[in-house]
């Protein structure tokens, strides 16, 4: 009997072992060096990080014009929402910029990049913060004047440029002039100036406002601000938010694929034009921002570029409270969709 059982058992064993199992079909072999497979955080954002590529894709519309800076005063108007007046001889060349000191002859090129919406602040990676303190913006501009030689001009000492612009939001009475402080030397093109911050003008007086009928759209009333610009490049009408409110440090945590090399995170206040950049924190592999008022209604927006793919994630926080850590799961989106979304903010 044992012999029979042994024979039958051996036969069945032979039969079943003949059914060799196939290896799994779910395994993949990852590409070494592929950005998606790079989940490594760096202490500082490298210049070749794909997050810097977003600058080139998100560049806002730029107003390019020209005028003769050596003769009489010039006022340039762009619709009924923006006008800029250059006194004669207000633009001079500087040796620091490689140009010839003095008023350049002939026409110069005017470049104006306007930060009109919250999305514009995000696309230019110019959060409304001043050394960590939150600002509420009315509008901002990047004004650059180039000589015919292509050298960037500066304002002559004591000269001011009158900049009048309308705001899409109701005019706030206590806006102040702020200038952007950039990292010196400037980062190479297409690299985010992570050290950028707004610095309030030494003249802390409130900006003058205006209210006039629209010259374009009938009976529409245009509300706006007038800034006597003393420095070219980044200038804005902003104000510090209420400093008496209790504040919190918020964290955004993302999946491992999203690191400081490929992702930027912003906190956008829903009821004011305040945009905060959540800086990457290496130790916690998270993005964080401080001085967020408790009770704020904010939206966390992540924008990532991994390889050739764009990702965006959002997280709405209606009432910031004790919960300050927010996981966000970005998803792949097309560039156009991302821009549309940002423009709608």
């Amino acid at each position, binding site marked *: 009997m044992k012999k*029979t059982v042994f*024979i*039958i058992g051996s*036969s069945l064993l*032979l*039969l079943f072992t*003949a*059914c*060799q199992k*196939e*290896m799994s*079909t*779910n*395994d*993949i*072999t*990852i*590409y070494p060096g*592929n950005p*998606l*497979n790079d*989940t490594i955080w760096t202490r500082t954002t490298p210049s070749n990080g794909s997050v810097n590529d977003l600058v080139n894709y998100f560049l806002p519309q730029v107003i390019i014009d020209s005028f003769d800076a050596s003769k009489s005063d010039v006022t340039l108007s762009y619709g009924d929402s923006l006008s800029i007046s250059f006194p004669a001889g207000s633009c001079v060349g500087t040796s620091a910029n490689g140009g010839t000191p003095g008023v350049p002859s002939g026409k110069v090129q005017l470049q104006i990049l306007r930060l009109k919406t919250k999305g514009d602040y995000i696309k230019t990676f110019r959060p409304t913060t001043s050394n960590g303190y939150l600002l509420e913006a009315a509008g901002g501009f990047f004004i650059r004047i180039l000589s015919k030689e292509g050298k960037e001009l500066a304002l002559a000492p004591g000269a001011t440029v009158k900049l009048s612009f309308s705001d899409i939001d109701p005019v706030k009475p206590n806006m102040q002039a702020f200038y952007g402080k950039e990292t010196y030397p400037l980062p190479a093109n297409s690299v985010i100036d992570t050290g950028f911050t707004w610095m309030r003008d030494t003249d802390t007086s409130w900006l003058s406002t205006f209210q006039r009928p629209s010259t374009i759209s009938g009976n529409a009333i245009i509300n706006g601000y007038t800034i006597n610009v003393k420095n070219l490049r980044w200038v804005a009408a902003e104000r510090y938010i209420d400093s008496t409110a209790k504040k*919190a*440090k918020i*964290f955004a*945590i*993302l*999946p*491992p*694929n999203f690191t400081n090399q490929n992702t930027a995170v912003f906190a956008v206040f829903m009821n004011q034009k305040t945009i905060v950049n959540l800086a990457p924190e290496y*130790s*916690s*592999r*998270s993005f964080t921002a401080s001085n967020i008022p408790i009770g704020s209604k904010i939206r966390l927006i992540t924008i990532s570029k991994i390889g050739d793919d764009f990702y965006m994630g959002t997280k709405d926080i209606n009432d910031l409270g004790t919960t*300050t*850590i927010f*996981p966000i*799961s970005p998803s792949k989106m097309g560039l156009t969709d991302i821009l549309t979304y940002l423009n709608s903010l």
Partner: protein
Amino acid sequence: MIDNEFDNFVNGKLKDHEAPVPAGLWDKLKDKQFDDFVGDSLKDQTATVPDGLWDKIADAQFDQFLGNTISEYTAPVPDGLWAKLADANFDASVQDKIGNYIAPVPESLWGKVADAQFDAFVGSSLKDYAAPVPEGLWEKIHPEEKEERRIFYFLRIPAAAIFIFAILMGGTAAYIWLKPHFASPIPATTDISKEHNRQAIDSAGNTTITPDNQPDPASNANANSPHTNSTVPGKDVSSIPVLNAPNSIEKKKDILTSKDKISNAPLSGNQATLTVVNNSHLPATKKNRSNASISDRDNHLNGFGNPIASGDLSANQQSVPPITSIDSTDTGNNSYIYTPPYQSNFLAIATIPFPPFTVTGLKDLSGKELTDYKHASQIKSNIICPSNRSNPNTDWFAEAYASPDFTVKSFSNVSASQQYLLKKDSIESMRVGFTAGIRLVKPINENFLIKTGIQYSQINQQYLYRTENEIKTTTVVTVRTIVRAPGDTVVIADTSVLQQIGYKNNIVKNRFRSVDVPVIIGYQFGNEDIKFGINAGVIFNLSSWYQGVILDTSLAIVPLTKSNSMVYKTNIGMGLYAGFSVTKQLSEDLHIFFEPYFRYNLSNMTSNQSPYNQKFSVGGLSIGLRFNLNKQ
């Protein structure tokens, strides 16, 4: 005048004179007077027998003369006489005279003979007997075997012969190794044939046991028995003392031989216990007869039966003693004693209550049925009957089996590009498949059988191809230590998804399935426990279908289903089958078998639309069970 002178004178005068004897003179002369007259003068005289004298003397006259004259005479056998008698002489004499003689068994004789006695008798008599098989006998017994061997003519086909030869070598080696197990019945066949023949004759009513190579004595039944015609005047051997002579079969033939010799030997009695039946029937010329062998029983029965029937020995009925045990001192005859193994403790001849050979006694045996069937029933357990090869096996068997299959692909190009062929070759590889089925087995005879049934086969083929930029998503738990404020540290375990990108080796198993009907002829040999078989046949495909993927002409992988298969046929036709099986008996009605086999498909499995031709050949090891459908 001296007698001599007188004799010469008378001889000269009366030599030619004949004087008539007066009537009644001889009657008046008494034998005693004649004997006294002759005295010893003629004792040593030898006179030639006149020509024709012997012919004038009838056997009956001689027998009567001897019967009247020496019936009461007892003469001792001279010392050394028996020793001088060679069996051959005796056999030749008996064969010549009574070889064809058949004596009927007296009524009730067989009934008085117990089976055990008969067995002992036959055993002791024929223990060492061997009869040569007549030429051509075996050929007449196994005519079918010749027919079967003709089937192997296909071995003349070189390819098949090589394959079968290789298998046969292994099988033959195993057969030789196992030969002691099943070779033993072969010599038994010869013995039993002899036994069988003898029994057949017995059962026919003949009272003789005739060797197989002897002519049927019935054809020369005692019409002219030499016993009645041979007379030897002056030989009175009616009472011959013989030591144990009639007690054994061997001695009986000695008796007859000695009687023959006695005819010219001086008779002196010193062993007178046997009054032998009429021996005077032996002719004087029997010494020169051939030495043809004759069975012992012939000697026995013919040596006693016929003279008794003649009624000449009524006065000697009591002189024939019963057959008694062979004297233990008679070592010269011990070699003839055979004790059957099933009666090892049986004193064979000692207990045979053989009656005196009298007319009355023998008549008592008449009408008794010869119980040879009883005899056969006792010894059949010791006989391994030869296989009856002319009787085909009518059993039916069913087989259920399964096999792992190993497939070999045959491929030839028709119109495919070189790039296509290279990629196809790189991404395809054969995998282990299987076959399972059931078969009905019909033995044609002891060695040949035919199988047919239905089976399902699945050939597996692995398609391994690479796809790029495959995203692998893995759910991970990321643990972070977050310092919200000095002294406010929290550990966050975040469950999220990790995506990785890479290439994937896609493995798709193509399945080529088919349903077939095998028709196989097998030749098996071996013993009851293990049989080896050579199987060959054809496999008819009923239907084939395929599932998996296939490489199209643009080198893309496209799915292949049963409904859209334009590349493969739905019937691949016929295939050839060859296998070698080893069958092990598990029980009376259950066998397990292992059968390595090879299947070669004759036609391509691809259709005419395919840019290439492809077919599969399959090798496997069938493992299955064979059930006897004739199970009682």
